């Protein structure tokens, strides 16, 4: 049997990851006589976005937490995913907080539980557009209204004094993806999320005018947050805490073992390009969940979306109705930080 260096490296990585996950799982089992979760089945979302890497590598950690059946349900990114959580079709998801806030404002039964990572979106624009303010009167491609792209760009536009409903010409297309429209020069700007920014950069298309991982104020707030079905959270507090803990440990893994995580995502079919996955894990700050205040993120986006006229509730009401930090605070104490 002939083995080359790549196979050897892959085998080593697999062994190392298995050992790492086994060690984390062993530590979980050793943490004490915690009661078992109320349910052993967890349903999570699966979509082309790869900045939610912790969700794709959390299954082993969930198994160690006592969940024997971790199901990934194919779901569109954006408002539909938030609705699926509210309806109980999904138990948990990692998602940009903006669309989740819209659902909370509308009374849908979604509970935000923790902040996972800071900005992953990048705003690409044609030459000649240097800032968000320059988007006035320009065409911007989005999958649909109230998607993450639309909500995030609306918040950005509001912050610089634009009226997103009037000043920006939104372009949606069911047949052609926005990234293709941008690549084809048919729209002026496009907000991409991993692996789209990596692809545009690789192809040298457009220029980045906002990088939410690095540019203020976006870099000072969470992008993707862990949200759960409110009824599930209410009925299954032990399971919820275990999911929160597993998800935050998976987030730590993204920091400590990005290559391993990227490999797992490819192996399990969550993405095709490992190089883009590795790049994403390097670009996205997964190490901020201990330092950043998720409630402040909700407050910030709620203020911006309210200014944009997309939500009606006050930030305090949205926090009161749609957030529960008990599990995060407990897990933060347990995991340190």
């Amino acid at each position: 049997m002939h083995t080359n260096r790549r196979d050897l490296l892959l085998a080593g990585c697999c062994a190392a990851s298995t050992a790492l996950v086994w060690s984390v799982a062993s530590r979980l089992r050793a943490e004490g006589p915690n009661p078992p979760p109320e349910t052993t089945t967890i349903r999570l979302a699966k979509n082309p976005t790869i900045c939610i890497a912790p969700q794709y590598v959390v299954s082993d950690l969930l198994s160690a937490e006592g969940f024997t059946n971790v199901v990934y349900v194919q779901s569109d990114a954006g408002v539909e995913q938030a609705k699926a959580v509210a309806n109980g079709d999904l138990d948990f998801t990692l998602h940009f907080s903006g669309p989740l806030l819209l659902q909370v404002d509308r009374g849908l039964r979604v509970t935000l539980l923790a902040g996972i990572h800071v900005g992953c979106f990048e705003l690409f624009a044609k030459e000649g557009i240097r800032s968000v303010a320059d988007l006035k009167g320009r065409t911007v491609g989005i999958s649909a209204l109230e998607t993450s792209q639309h909500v995030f760009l609306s918040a950005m536009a509001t912050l610089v004094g634009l009226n997103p409903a009037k000043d920006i010409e939104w372009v949606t297309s069911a047949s052609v993806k926005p990234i293709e429209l941008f690549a084809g020069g048919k729209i002026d700007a496009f907000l991409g999320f991993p692996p789209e920014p990596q692809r545009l950069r690789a192809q040298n298309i457009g220029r980045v005018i906002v990088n939410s991982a690095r540019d203020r104020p976006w870099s000072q707030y969470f992008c993707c947050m862990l949200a759960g079905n409110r009824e599930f959270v209410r009925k299954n507090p032990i399971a919820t805490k275990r999911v929160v803990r597993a998800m935050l440990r998976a987030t730590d893994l993204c920091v400590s073992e990005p290559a391993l995580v990227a490999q797992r995502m490819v192996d399990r079919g969550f993405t095709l390009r490992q190089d883009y996955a590795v790049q994403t894990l390097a670009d996205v700050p997964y190490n901020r969940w201990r330092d950043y205040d998720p409630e402040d993120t909700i407050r910030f986006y709620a203020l911006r979306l309210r200014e944009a006229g997309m939500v009606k509730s006050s930030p305090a009401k949205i926090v009161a109705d749609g957030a529960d930090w008990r599990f995060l605070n407990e897990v933060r104490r347990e995991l340190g930080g």
Partner: protein
Amino acid sequence: MNLEADSTTSFLRPLAAISRASRDGTSVKDGLVGFGSRPSLRTKLLMAFLVIEVLLVSVGVIGFLSLREADKQTNQVLALQQKIEAYRQVQHDTLRQLHGVSTALALPNETTLASALRQINQFGYGLDRISFVEKDEVALLDQVREEYARFIAVVSDVVDLIRNGRAADAKQREVVELGPLADKLERLTNQLVNRAEADMVAGIDASRQTYAKSQILVAAVALASLILTLVLGHAISRSVIDPVHIIHHGLNRIAAGDFTQRIDVPNRDELGALAAHVNSTCEELQQLYQSLEEASRHKSQFLANMSHELRTPLNAILGFSELLLDGIYGDPPDKMRSPVERIQRNGRHLLGLINDVLDLSKIEAGQLRLSLADYSVEELVSGVYTSVESLAAEKNLSLRIAVPPGLPPARGDERRLAQALFNLVGNAIKFTDAGEVWIEVETKGDSYIFSVRDTGPGVDEADQTKIFQEFQQVDNSITKTKAGAGLGLAIVKRIVEMHGGRIWIESRIGHGATFSFLVPARLEQQAMQT
């Protein structure tokens, strides 16, 4: 004397009635029957006005409270705006310090280093200015102070390193420590700003809600006040106007002579007491009326009897005086003839008077009954004409008749109608010294109008209403020269009214007079006497 005694009694009766009511258990207070068990009209009105006042005051108080709440909310929002400004200042100062340190590193001289240290020391003032923070933000602000102390320490170290010529170490510490510290400080101040903005948004929402609630509350209270005021107004007006109407109708019935029905007012206030008074007065009036009727009947009976008793000897006087004048007892001497003729003339006048009094008494006593039968108007007028023709001729007056030909037979008491017409024509001839007297008949619907027109002195307008009353005559020189007791027109009026008709006069002084009466062409039943 009896009359006086009666009237004294009648004045005392209401008090007696009240005393009876008191004995029967009806409360009497301040002279008001039934007052006391329920609120008086004054109390009701006062209560209604009090309720309206309370409602007005309520609207005012609610408006005042709403304004106070709005003022409170506005002050809160203003305080939050001040807070946001202060937090933004801190945020700005943080960035400026970082810039100062970067400048000092780029241009390491004493001026830039001193400037960086000055800015750092002044930053504490900005933190102290935020002394009005909410309690829940104290922890966050303490965190800011803590991080800032760390920041100052590192900056001081960096400045020392630069002064000691260790620029590379200073740069290293800036990148590794100062950058993240500044980032954290900025994030913490962002949190303060976000919290204050969120509080302000909540304050604005609360203010809007308060305004909306106040609007609804004030509108609801105003609407309730309006409805309550209308209901109260309606209830009070009903409790006042309805009894007043009932009492008004009752008084109209009493005025028309109907004393049998009681005024039934459910109120137990002043109006109820008034109704009770009216009822007791009505009872008294009824008794008085009955007494008067009885007395009148007795009077009429007396007069009828007296007239009859007087007529018998008077007829004898007239008969014997006529016999004397006719010479049955031999030719009377010339000296005696004149006194006997005077006896006969005065006797006839007296007999006429007695007959009139007897007729009037019978009518008043209700003893006169009409004999209804068919008659011819032409014959009736013709009969009267024949009776008075000689009287008119004696005074050289022209007496004329105007009756439409072919009138259908009428029905009524022909004798009494002839008497009425005779009286009118007799009066006309009596008071007309020259000229003409017309007797005219015309039809009006189902009625006949009999008119007697003369060229006499006429009747003054002031006297026209009283000449139809008993023993009333026009008081002037003309009537004084003419004989008469003032009963003729009263009898005519009664006869006409017994036929269900009416009589009237049209006259002007110096232009004659026209007396007319209207009677139904066919009277089937005698009208009720009034």
